């Protein structure tokens, strides 16, 4: 029993503790703080599972963006919290708890009965990797072997954003999302919002670029860029753009559009939709990843800011 093992047991207990706190906390604010802590601990767990790509995604989205999204909602709904407290009757709760324990036990039995090493696609992925020109198998899966999933996932992001926008009252359609943040230009927060984003943009692009051979990729990079954009908006340094802006809409769809275009070109040059000619596979993957980074950053940022709440007319 090594020290590392003790460390991992402690980590598992912490994750469970943070999750239990998130469920049991009395105030929604405390639950949201708990959820952010939980996301952070979970990303440590992903590092222990040797899935650093996932750890990056979880750190960026699980703790960061989801946390901020929830906090915004908690702040708005604060007034209704005390009124919305009718829990199901005790017998029903006991029944629900019993069912949940049953689900957990069933999953635990599955985990315990599985052999120590399972079937894997890792050899196939590694064997086929040289053809893609990238060195990180996860990026290879995302961008080449299962490129179709990634393409559809971009479409889901854009569709979710259209869904959020469609919740705007008619008079605000095409306007600026979210509330206006007005702050004195020389305060602490605007200073922070001018200092951090250059570093953050650097990190976002670094994550995208290094994703070809090391853990990282367009998702993780895009999320960091989205977070930096949100800092700038929250500090009132720049207002959120009106959603009717043409540049915004074009940039939003640029990721899926370039992906589909490359995919269609693959039908002519490599014989199948989303197939890349081997000689130029890596440049093609980069060509897709750059607009993808833009789409992810914009879509994630705008998903957090929410539907338009102000008209697009100049103030």
């Amino acid at each position, binding site marked *: 029993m090594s020290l590392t093992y003790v460390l991992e047991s402690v980590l598992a207990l912490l994750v469970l503790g943070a999750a239990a706190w998130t469920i049991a906390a009395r105030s929604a604010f405390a639950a949201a703080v708990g959820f952010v802590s939980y996301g*952070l601990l979970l990303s440590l767990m992903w590092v222990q599972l040797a899935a650093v790509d996932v750890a*990056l995604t979880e750190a*960026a989205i699980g703790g960061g963006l989801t946390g901020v999204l929830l906090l915004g909602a908690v*702040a708005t709904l604060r007034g209704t919290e005390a009124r919305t407290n009718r829990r199901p009757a005790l017998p029903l709760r006991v029944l629900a708890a019993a069912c949940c324990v049953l689900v957990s036990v069933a999953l635990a039995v599955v985990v315990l009965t599985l052999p120590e090493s399972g079937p894997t696609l890792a050899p196939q992925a590694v064997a086929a990797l040289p053809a893609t020109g990238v060195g990180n198998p996860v990026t290879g899966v995302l961008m080449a072997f299962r490129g179709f999933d990634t393409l559809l996932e971009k479409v889901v992001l854009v569709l979710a954003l259209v869904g959020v926008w469609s919740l705007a009252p008619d008079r605000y359609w095409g306007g600026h999302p979210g509330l206006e943040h007005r702050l004195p230009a020389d305060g602490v927060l605007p200073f*922070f919002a001018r200092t951090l984003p250059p570093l953050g943009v650097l990190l976002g692009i670094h994550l995208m670029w290094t994703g070809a051979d090391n853990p990282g990729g367009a998702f993780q990079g895009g999320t960091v860029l989205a977070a930096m954009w*949100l800092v700038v908006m929250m500090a009132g340094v720049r207002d959120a753009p009106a959603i009717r802006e043409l540049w915004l809409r074009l940039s939003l769809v640029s990721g899926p559009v370039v992906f589909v275009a490359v995919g269609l070109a693959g039908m002519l040059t490599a014989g199948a939709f989303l197939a890349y000619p081997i000689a130029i596979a890596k440049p093609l993957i980069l060509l897709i990843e750059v607009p993808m980074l833009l789409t992810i950053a914009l879509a994630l940022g705008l998903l957090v800011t929410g539907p338009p709440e102000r008209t697009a007319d100049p103030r």
Partner: protein
Amino acid sequence: MNPEFLAAVAGFVMITVVVGLARILWGPGDADRVMAAQLLGTGGIASLLLVGVARDLPAAVDVALTLAMLAAFASIAFIKGVTAAQDEDSGEGGGR
């Protein structure tokens, strides 16, 4: 460098910081809760760096950088949420 020692320091920092999470439970103010969460963030970053060196995972530094970036971002959002609630309570509009 002995990886066991690095892992031990990582574990120690993690456990200390988690004890500090009791402040999320106790409060009393929202500021105290945010502080505990921020401490957890810093402790998590520290142990991630340690584990990265101990297990020879250079990419762990990238995770730590991302965590640092996003933790800063989340703390700002926490505080904006708290100040908004304060403004509502005290009836002041806008401002910080």
